[in-house]
Structures are given as structure tokens and as C-alpha cells.
């Protein structure tokens, strides 16, 4: 067993624990964006795809490098874009509030709205 492998294993195991710790705190409300974000993070495989292009020097190598680069780029770019798009929709209050607050309606209801958080 080489030292390099041992180091890699250590990093892998500790990262798993960090992942468990951090992700178990994400609320269920955000589980879809979380999965999409995690998806984008494994788009780091693009770095791997770029590195194999360094050693590619024949037709097979080029084809593999091309497909790997295309797959990984699609993963990372699309993943981040769609995660951003989803998270943009999560708002505390609707972007365009109802034009006129129906004060009469609330009053007619016996003022039950008084304690509602705004």
C-alpha cells in the first residue's frame, strides 16, 4: 500500500463524514435544489476529462476525451444553471404582492389577520 493511496483514502472518508454532517442539516424544503447542487458538484469530473486530454494521442483517446468533456460540461453547466433557477423561485413573500390590500375583508373577518406574520 502506497502512502498516496492512504492519503487519498483518508481524504475520501473524512469528506464523506463532512458531507453527512453538512447535508443532514438541509431542510426537506430544499431537497430538490440540494440534489441538483450536489449533481453540479460532481460535474468536477470535468477536471478529470480535461486531464485525460493531456495524454490522449490516438483516435480512441480523442473520442473518449471528447465525449467525457461534453458529458461533464453538460453536467456542470446545466446543473448549476438549473439549481440557480430553482433557488431564485424560493421567496419569503411573492414578488408581486396583490395590488390593493383588501382591508375590509380582513376587518369583516373579525381581525383574525392581526397576528399573521407579514
Amino acid at each position: 500500500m502506497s502512502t498516496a493511496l492512504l492519503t487519498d483514502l483518508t481524504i475520501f472518508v473524512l469528506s464523506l463524514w463532512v458531507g453527512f454532517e453538512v447535508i443532514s442539516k438541509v431542510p426537506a424544503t430544499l431537497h430538490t435544489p440540494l440534489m441538483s447542487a450536489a449533481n453540479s458538484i460532481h460535474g468536477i469530473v470535468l477536471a478529470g476529462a480535461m486531464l485525460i486530454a493531456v495524454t490522449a494521442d490516438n483516435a480512441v483517446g480523442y473520442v473518449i476525451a471528447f465525449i467525457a468533456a461534453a458529458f461533464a460540461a453538460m453536467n456542470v453547466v446545466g446543473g448549476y444553471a438549473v439549481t440557480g433557477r430553482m433557488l431564485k423561485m424560493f421567496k419569503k413573500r411573492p414578488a408581486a404582492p396583490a395590488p390593493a390590500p383588501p382591508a375590509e375583508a380582513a376587518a369583516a373577518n373579525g381581525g383574525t389577520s392581526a397576528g399573521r406574520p407579514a
Partner: protein
Amino acid sequence: MSGFTWTTQLLYVLAASCFVLGLHMMNNPATARRGNQVSVAGMVGAIAVTLAIVIHSGAVTATGWAVMLAGALVGSAVGLYAARTVQMTAMPQLVSVFNAVGGGAAALVAIHEYIRLSSGHVSVATTVTTLLDVLIGSVTFSGSIIAAGKLQGVITSAPVTFPGARVVNLLLAVVALGTGGYMIASYSLPGLIIVIIAALAFGVAMVMPIGGADMPVVISLLNAFTGTAVAMAGFVIQNWALIIAGALVGASGGILTKLMADAMNRSIRNIIVGGFGTGDSAPVVAGATGSVKSVAADDAAIQLAYASKVIIVPGYGLAAAQAQHEVAGLAELLESRGVDVSYAIHPVAGRMPGHMNVLLAEANVPYPQLKEMEEINPEFARTDVALVIGANDVTNPAARRAGTAISGMPILDVDQAKSIIVIKRSMGHGYAGIDNELYADPKTSMYFADAKTALADLTSAVKTLVG
């Protein structure tokens, strides 16, 4: 270690820190968006560092540059187009496709490395990590494509099984692992090809028998697989950034898989081996109709309009009917009358973890109104009307008793509300295939209609009522 290697490794660690920080910031909807940006920054950094390494190596041929850049451009364009145009209801398919290409890319990295090393000595450690990467990556690739096809409706979402399916699965696993064992003993390129083919076939065979309702578990599991495959690719090419990022994703997928399986009251093994779970195609048969009370729009509107607290319980039926905008409209109208409205979201409401929240957020529902199961359950007792739309098994009180198909499954305590209105097309069964005792409750009124029509009618009835 040269100064250049030092610097690049440190920058990779910095990028990995950004990923962790970005995930950490997703623990709150208010900071989640910035978290995603932090993660993007880390990724841009990691890619820039890799580019520097590639240039520094000085070994890339002109063709090498051309294929790398062309691939990255084509992939980015396709990814960006898909991300911009996808419907929120189709999000599970898109995530599956991204998952598939991620797993495929990870497998390709190891395949390339293995072919390149053909001439020299390949250590056992490299062979083992290569094999793991290729196996997991290929299974994820084909499995995710099938999952996406099922979610999109291109492939039937019903479980597809045939006699002897399990034998075929076992055979594929034996072939892949046996060939792998041989490859550890001696280098073999044909062996690698056999492993790839067997793993691809195994991925198809694994997902085909899984029904539509189990998809949240499958997608989470495949996500965990991709993470692991990427980490293995990191072992093969000795790159820490890939190892750390892959492990983070593996952990995330693992947690979500467990959460989903628990929320559905099923073990992961049961789902993979099972091959039932046809949530979509619940037969429209009259269940125990007994003493079910039905209600018309006007009466339901009166109950809602004069309630002081309403909880909406949306299920997949709501998303299937594309009625999330209608429900948001009704909620807004009720709120403008001073009714306290919130949404009770069961963990498996939708086709992937948290899917329902995204659909409602898209319909402009403010996220503080979206309540998780543990948070909302104590509130049902203080609720005047619980409005159940397209949710079935997750509201069935039978889950609290032993000896039913859903015993032990965590449910929303809808039956504790003062009155309950259920919008449903028929008395058809949910995915568990049993009667929902909630429907026979004297406090429950059934509103038989399509979710979209029902909500539109309810909204206009409330409007007429209050002038």
C-alpha cells in the same frame, strides 16, 4: 513536490472548501442562493486550476485541444439550454440525465486511463479503483437514462419484469465481478470491455422493474452512485478535488436515499429487488365506498372562507394535474380574507426529494408557508379545514395501526383537523393499494373532481361568496 504542484493542490483544496461551504449555506432558503454561487465560484476556480495544469504540462496535441474545447462547448450549450427551458414538473428527469452524463464521464476517465496504462505496470490499487469507477459509473449511466425515460413517460413507468429476470441480474453481476477479478490478476483490455457491457446491462435491468412511485428513492440512490464513481475517478487519476467532491455527493445521495426510503416505509433492498409500486396507474376501482360523504363547491367554499386556519396537503396528484398555480391562487384569496394558510409537505410528495416545494415555489407560494411533516403535524388539531389534494396513502390513519400494508409509515395527521375536504378524482386506491380510512371519517367530505377544475371552481365559489 514542485512549487507549481503545491500551488495547484492548495487551490483544489480551496475549491473543495467552497463546495462544502456552498452545501452548508443550503440549510436555509434565505442563504441557499448565495450558497450555490459560492459553489459555482469553487467550480470555476477548480476548472481554471486544471486548465493551468493542462497548459503547464505542455503535452496536449493540437487535436487534443480541439476535442477538449469542442466537447466542453457542445456540452455546456446543451446543458444550459436544458436548464433554461425545463419545466419544473420535469425536474426529476433532468436531474437524472445530468446524473447519467456525470456517471458516464467518470467511467470514461478511468477507461481512458486504463487504456493508456496498457504498456506499463498497472498497480492493484489502480486496477481496483478503475474497476469500481467503471462499474458504478456505467450502472449509473444506463440506470439514470432508464429512470429519466420512465419519468418522462417514454418508457412505461409500470414495473417491467419477465420470468427469470433475477437470474439475468445475478448472471450480469457474476460476469462483471468475475471478469473484474481476472483483471486484478492480469491486465486485460477485452476484460474491461466485458465489464462495461455487463455493467450497462445491469443498470438497465436494475431500474426497469422499479415502479413510478419508487422513483424518489431510485434517483437519490443513482445520485449517490455518481458521487462514488467520481470519487473513484479521483483515485485513478490521483486528484483530490474529484475525491472530495465525489464523497460529498455520495454522502448527500446516501442521506436522501435513506430519508426517502424511510418516508415510504420501504427498505432500499425491497425497492431494488421488489418490482412493484405503480403509483401512477392506480386502478380506478371503487374502494370501500361505505359511508363516504361528498361535497359540492359551494359548501366547501363556505367551510374554507369562514375558517381561521387552513392547511393544504398537496400530493403528486396536484402536480400531475398541473394545478399548483390554482392552489396558490386559492390560498392567496383565503389569506386576503385573513385565513391562516400553510402547506403540509410529506417527504415523498412528488417524483424526487423535495419536488413539491419547488413546484409550489414556482407558483409563488412563499417558502415560510411550506411546512415539513414534523413541523406541521402538531398544528392539525388547531386547524379548521385540512384540504387534501391528490395525496392518499400519506394521510391514511391506518398507518398508525399494526398489520396494514402501510403500518409504520410516517403520515400527516390530517384526521386530527376539525374538518377535512379531500379533492380526488375517484375512490381509487393509492400506491399501497388499500382503502384510506380518512375518507370514511365523519369529519371528511369528498370532492370528486380533477384537481385543476376543482380548485378553479372553489376559488370562484369563494369569490362569489365574499363578493
